[in-house]
């Protein structure tokens, strides 16, 4: 890709006296992690494709505080939250979409008590609504008939009861949707949550992501679909650990849709 993506910031919108339809909250992983940045870009392409008027906070965005909160550092969490809420409220943000279930959960559920009230959507929910409004076309394309299983992110699934949006999108891609033994309410964690991403695991006999990858492998998928940058990392590592990276891909739902259309 030659040209850079067009990613407007809230500051630019403000300067022009405009307000976007939705704020895209990119999150730390989406901003800095090499693998997650690809998801971010795929999602931005879909937003452009559906002619969504969006903006990002850019350098004004800061960690939501999710890892701090789950780790028990409530103080740091609330400092982050209050700072972010000040920025969001300053721009009079009403609607937020994010590709990270952790950001999604934190802003949606834990910011209101601290003065931040927004409509918050996970990107799979937002894409589903675009689809329903006829703004986004999702077609089989190159994933048609492929064996794909979806790994439920804890903070989207159990945490917030959303199991169907990502699956609906996958069905639209006409893939062969396979369910793992542990899925939906019983879905097993990838091992990254609760700030585990940022520390070594405690002594045990296996890593959580390996266990989860083995469960995924049971259904013999060609693609493991994820909806969270951290799950993505964990499952990618798991697949590598099993030496299966040549036959099994780990992709975000947004990437699958963007790739299917060759965006």
């Amino acid at each position: 890709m030659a040209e850079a993506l067009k990613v407007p910031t809230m500051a630019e919108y403000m300067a022009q006296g405009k307000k976007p339809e939705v704020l895209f909250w990119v999150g730390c992983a989406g901003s800095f992690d090499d693998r997650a940045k690809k998801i971010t870009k795929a999602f931005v392409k879909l937003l452009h494709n559906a002619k969504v008027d969006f903006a990002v906070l850019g350098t004004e965005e800061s960690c939501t505080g999710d890892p701090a909160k789950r780790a028990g550092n409530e103080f740091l969490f609330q400092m982050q939250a209050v700072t972010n809420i000040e920025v969001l409220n300053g721009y009079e943000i009403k609607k937020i979409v994010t590709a990270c279930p952790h950001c999604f959960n934190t802003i949606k559920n834990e910011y209101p008590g601290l003065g931040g009230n927004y409509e918050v959507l996970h990107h799979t929910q937002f894409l589903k609504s675009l689809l329903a409004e006829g703004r986004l076309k999702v077609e089989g394309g190159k994933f048609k008939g492929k064996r794909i299983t979806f790994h439920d992110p804890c903070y989207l699934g159990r945490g917030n009861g959303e199991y169907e949006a990502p699956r609906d999108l996958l069905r639209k891609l006409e893939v062969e949707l396979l369910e793992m033994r542990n899925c939906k309410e019983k879905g097993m964690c990838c091992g990254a949550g609760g700030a585990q991403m940022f520390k070594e695991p405690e002594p045990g006999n296996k890593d959580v992501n390996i266990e989860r990858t083995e469960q995924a492998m049971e259904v013999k998928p060609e693609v493991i679909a994820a909806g969270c940058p951290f799950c993505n990392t964990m499952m990618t590592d798991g697949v590598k650990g099993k030496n299966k990276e040549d036959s099994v891909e780990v992709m975000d739902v947004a990437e699958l849709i963007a790739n299917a259309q060759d965006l």
Partner: protein
Amino acid sequence: MQIIAQILFLIALVAGIGFFVRNIRRLIRNINLGKEIDRSDNSGERFGKMAKIALGQSKMVKRPISGFLHVIVYVGFIIINIEVLEIIIDGLFGTHRILSFMGGFYSFLIGFFEILALLVFVGVVVFWIRRNLINIYRFLGNELKGWPKNDANYILYFEMVLMILFLVMNATDYQLQLNGAPHYSSEAGIMGSFPVSQFLLPIFDGMSNATLIIIERTAWWLHILGILFFLNYLYYSKHLHILLAFPNVYYSKLQPQGEFNNLQSVTDEVKLMMDPDADPFAAPAEEEEEGEPEKFGASDVFDLNRVQLLNSYTCTECGRCTSECPANRTGKKLSPRKIMMDTRDRLEEVGEIINKKGKYEDNGKQLLGDFILEEELWACTTCNACVEACPVGIDPLSIIVEMRRYLMMEQSSAPNELAISMTNIENNGAPWPYNQQDRLNWAKEN
């Protein structure tokens, strides 16, 4: 003779119930050692949840085999206890099958109880086999060794014996009625129907009425004394859940599972720090009124809230949580069931001290460190699998988080890499050491 039996029965009844009331009062006293928490909202939704999960056992049947058996034992046990009502009246007034005036309906009830008793018996035998002969992951945990395992088995034996006594009592009673024994038989014909115990009749073949009466009375007495004993065994057992499951589900969290509570004490401090106009002396003054400044998080049972303590008494030690826990499944020390059992054990220890000395005196122990280890707490991925799996609405995760809060904010004790990522968030607004000014660089790359 008859009157002595009646008096003995009354004494047993009063003692049994009196002891039970004493235990329940201790239980409430211990739960009230925790912090107050307001869960008086949304009573309609709470009742609905209680009806579905506690009464309707909706989470139990997610595991079809044990769930189905449990429903049988649970329904059977409750319904058969209606019969206890008659036993109590008969016992107090020296009557025989006082409720038999209901005629055909009475026969139907007794017949129904008998079938349930048989089903309960079979269910309990299968439970025993699952627990002792089949290697089921959730029954193999370390925390089940010793008393918890015995407790579970005692109850199973107990229920088997109670059901046998009930059937023997009915069989001999039936035989006595057939024999036309005075006090037992009635001109109205046979009272009750005995679809199960009739098959026991050959055992009592040829026995004199006197012998039959002794057997019948013995079974009757053991049955009712057994139930009174069971009532009082509850407090020392995981079987408290048959009472506490209801309030426990009622008071469980209604918010999305992903939502953790925001600590008000922290909010107050953060507000003060962020607000340049705030009077720096306002908040501390408020705190002084309550004595020492509020402690963040939990290191002992006193720091947990009352719902969390109720949770610990309600835990059935079934291990559904632990068997879904990703940390436990991969060999880490963490077991959400153990978190609940430790909390109860510590609370009981504190309660014992209060029983003896009238108030709590430090015994040099606390929940953190002496019961629950840091290593367990840090292994949790906060995935909520335990919360989702629990059939009685327990939230082990909330206790884990509360104790992490203590470790983080009061002790600054966290695994090294985690502490570093916290510093990163503080300084650069991301858990990694990247500059906040580079946050939009991804848009320009490629």
